[in-house]
């Protein structure tokens, strides 16, 4: 349990990069980019975790209860919104590229560009 979550982080990152490199379809590639980014959420929340602590909300528990790190959670929230924004923009690019090129294979896109 000591390092296992971080190994999972490295695995997600590697798998996502593998997907990007071997992808033959831009939308598939964009989804793989989402996977790459998801490794950063797991890493962020992983480093801020504290065994046996509560979530950082003091609505129904006393203020001095040990709680996990709220900062990484705020960072992860920011990260999730950034992901949504970047993905939306990339999708728009892909949709338009499909219209112009008739294909979304990165390999073929280059040949068609001329």
């Amino acid at each position, binding site marked *: 349990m000591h390092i296992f979550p971080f190994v999972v982080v490295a695995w997600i990152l590697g798998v996502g990069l593998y997907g990007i490199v071997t992808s033959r379809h831009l939308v598939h590639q964009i989804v793989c980019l989402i996977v790459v980014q998801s490794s950063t959420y797991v890493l962020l929340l992983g480093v801020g975790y504290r065994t*046996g602590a*509560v979530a950082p909300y003091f609505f129904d528990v006393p203020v001095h209860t040990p709680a*996990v790190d709220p900062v990484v959670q705020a960072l992860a929230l920011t990260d999730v919104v950034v992901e949504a924004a970047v993905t939306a923009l990339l999708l728009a690019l892909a949709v338009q590229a499909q219209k112009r090129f008739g294909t979304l294979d990165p390999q073929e896109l280059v040949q068609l560009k001329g």
Partner: protein
Amino acid sequence: MTDPHLLAVVTPYTIPVPLMDVLQVTVLVLVAAGATAVVLVRDLPRQVIVLSGYGLLLAVLFLVFQAPDVTLSELTIGAVALPMLLLLALAKIRRREK
């Protein structure tokens, strides 16, 4: 509807630490497998559905990492909104590919 206790967080008072460990390891393994599945499924609409499931798994993981706020975001954005955007984009792309 507006009773905040309905959304009360999972606290260690409800789940003892050893059980929490088991839970976390299980979910982590599932997340790793989910990420692999997302990458390896090359058939597009199916991949988006797998991505949605992966988002759901991540949301559960964040819950057991005591991050309910991120869980909510991941649920709304990662498991619902993003797959929906992808499906909309695919609907358009596939229609033209035919």
